[in-house]
């Protein structure tokens, strides 16, 4: 690994990307919900611009950009570092947050005649806090700092789940909070052990120092299990379906599309950036096996749901499973590792966009029909063509049919599985696709069939367009050029330079 300078040109952008939404949170809190909405909406283009700038800087340098906070390099200080994947994730987060924010204006506007409303203040602040936390997770270089970011993320996500105050959402939020806390202490314990072993928590310094000792494995196991709890990998998914299915649509989109990816991203950082030099085949296989179980269980359960939002939430359980094939498929410095890596990142992106789009669309369906029972969808596609087009396109990506990002991800993963001789992973990948076909069929077949759906309120065109826009991005990912995959390799230890 090449030693990086503590601060590179353009590194200050990383600090700004984190602090901008953080400052937005503070000012929103002081100024009230009406201002909070304006601040949050106003920040979205700026944040998107910053994320793009970061991506451009990384691409121009061909190497990660970094910033040592306070001018103090690690191990004493905290470093922020953005590589190819960080930059892509930042751009993704900014797009989805922006989409959810503009979509949510209809629901979370502060009513006239009221100085401030509970739901509005909570939503607009929490969404900015989620954004700040995610940006920090994507660029954080210090494991303890990342712990704080992870907690920030949890504290922002939990109130969004129970924002409507119904008892079942409160129970879902409480379950989410307690299980996430369980995950946090597990992660923190691992962090303590790593510091005790090596006297630093900086990712790149640790990567130079770690060896295959039992203590390192204990730390890694504890941290990973904690992160899995927050990612809701099967069988730790107890909190996800009720939480994601009962939150307001805009919140579900962010929770399902981005928040679970935050903790997953840290798992990637741990295994591919801190421990890349160690033999990780066996633990990688354990993670892959859990992923396979998640794919099968999540998909079968999605097939059996009567409500659209629960179906989409269980589909998230399944799609999270796919992410974990990256551990067996991208480990080490083999010829196929870049394929597995690209496939894993592509799955993150494709699922983020497709699932966010589907949750937004599901919210529109529920608003328009007054319910989201699939049995009552007959003829709904004729009444809400754009919304069901969104569901269809998103579903296409979940099924892994071309031309979608979901297809691209499966295609890359299957190639990696074939090339590495680990054909066993191709079974859940393909089986999950078939089951996804089943549940997407369950949504679309009645909706496209003849019949008259009773529409209570026609959704605004602009909100339909926002959801569709996200689905189109999920589609466009299929056309990612080779340069995009090369970009994802920037800064990855062991990147062999030859991407797929």
């Amino acid at each position: 690994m090449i030693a990086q300078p503590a601060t590179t040109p353009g590194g200050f952008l990383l600090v700004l990307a984190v602090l901008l939404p953080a400052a937005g949170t503070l000012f929103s809190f002081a100024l009230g919900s009406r201002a909070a909405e304006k601040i949050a909406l106003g920040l979205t283009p700026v944040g998107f611009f910053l994320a793009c700038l970061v991506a451009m800087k990384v691409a121009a340098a061909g190497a990660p950009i970094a910033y040592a906070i306070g001018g103090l390099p690690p191990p004493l200080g905290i470093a922020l570092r953005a590589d190819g994947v960080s930059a892509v994730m930042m751009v993704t987060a900014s797009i989805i947050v922006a989409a959810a924010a503009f979509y949510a204006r209809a629901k979370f506007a502060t009513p006239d005649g009221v100085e401030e409303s509970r739901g509005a203040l909570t939503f607009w602040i929490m969404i900015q806090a989620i954004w700040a936390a995610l940006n920090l997770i994507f660029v954080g270089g210090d494991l303890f700092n990342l712990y704080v970011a992870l907690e920030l993320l949890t504290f922002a996500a939990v109130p969004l789940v129970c924002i409507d105050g119904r008892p079942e959402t409160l129970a879902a939020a409480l379950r989410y909070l307690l299980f996430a806390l369980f995950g946090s202490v597990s992660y923190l314990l691992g962090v303590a052990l790593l510091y005790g072993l090596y006297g630093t928590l900086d990712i790149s310094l640790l990567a130079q120092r770690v060896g295959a000792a039992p203590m390192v494995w204990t730390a890694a196991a504890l941290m990973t299990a904690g992160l899995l709890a927050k990612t809701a990998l099967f069988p730790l998914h107890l909190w996800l379906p009720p939480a994601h299915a009962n939150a307001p649509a805009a919140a579900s989109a962010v929770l399902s599309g981005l928040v679970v990816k935050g903790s997953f991203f840290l798992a990637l950082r741990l295994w591919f950036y801190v421990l890349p030099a160690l033999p990780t085949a066996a633990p990688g296989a354990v993670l892959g096996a859990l992923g396979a179980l998640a794919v099968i269980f999540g998909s079968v359960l999605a097939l059996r749901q009567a409500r659209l939002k629960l179906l989409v939430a269980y589909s998230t359980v399944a799609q999270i499973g796919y992410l974990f094939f990256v551990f067996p498929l991208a480990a080490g410095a083999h010829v196929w590792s870049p394929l597995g890596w690209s496939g894993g990142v592509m799955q993150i992106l494709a699922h983020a966009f497709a699932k966010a789009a589907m949750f937004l669309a599901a919210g529109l369906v529920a608003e328009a029909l007054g319910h989201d029972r699939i049995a009552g969808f007959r003829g709904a596609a004729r009444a809400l063509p754009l919304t069901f087009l969104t569901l269809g396109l998103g579903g296409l990506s979940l099924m892994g049919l071309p031309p979608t990002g979901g297809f691209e991800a499966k295609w890359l993963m299957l190639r990696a599985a074939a090339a590495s001789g680990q054909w066993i992973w191709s079974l859940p990948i393909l089986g999950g696709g078939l089951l996804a076909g089943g549940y997407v069929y369950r949504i679309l077949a009645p909706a496209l069939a003849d019949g008259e759906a009773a529409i209570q309120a026609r959704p605004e065109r602009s909100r339909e367009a926002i959801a569709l826009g996200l689905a189109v991005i999920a589609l466009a990912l299929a056309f990612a050029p080779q340069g995009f995959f090369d970009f994802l390799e920037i800064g990855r230890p062991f990147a062999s330079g030859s991407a797929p």
Partner: protein
Amino acid sequence: MNPSLLAGLVGAALVGLGLYGLIAHPHPLRKLLAFNLVGSGVFLVFGVVARRGAAAGYAFDPVPQAMVITGIVVAFAASALAVALILRLAVAGGDVSLDPQASGRRDDGEAE
């Protein structure tokens, strides 16, 4: 047995006790207490690491100690948020169970 090893063992014991409570207690407030036990066990491990890092005339390594202070604050915030949710749930339905199936409540309530 030196004090830091002793504290480390206490930390491990606290983690074990807390984990058991976290798994086995049905009441969320009891789970919260157990979570705080695990948390303080983890902080003790940090403390042991800090104590072992005594060097250069200092009795401890300040970095892990600072982390513990941050961790305590975060743990308190978490407890407070959980308490608020538990109380609200108790007021709203009287049912604070975390397992809807166990108490006969469905958790897939209709959409808004």
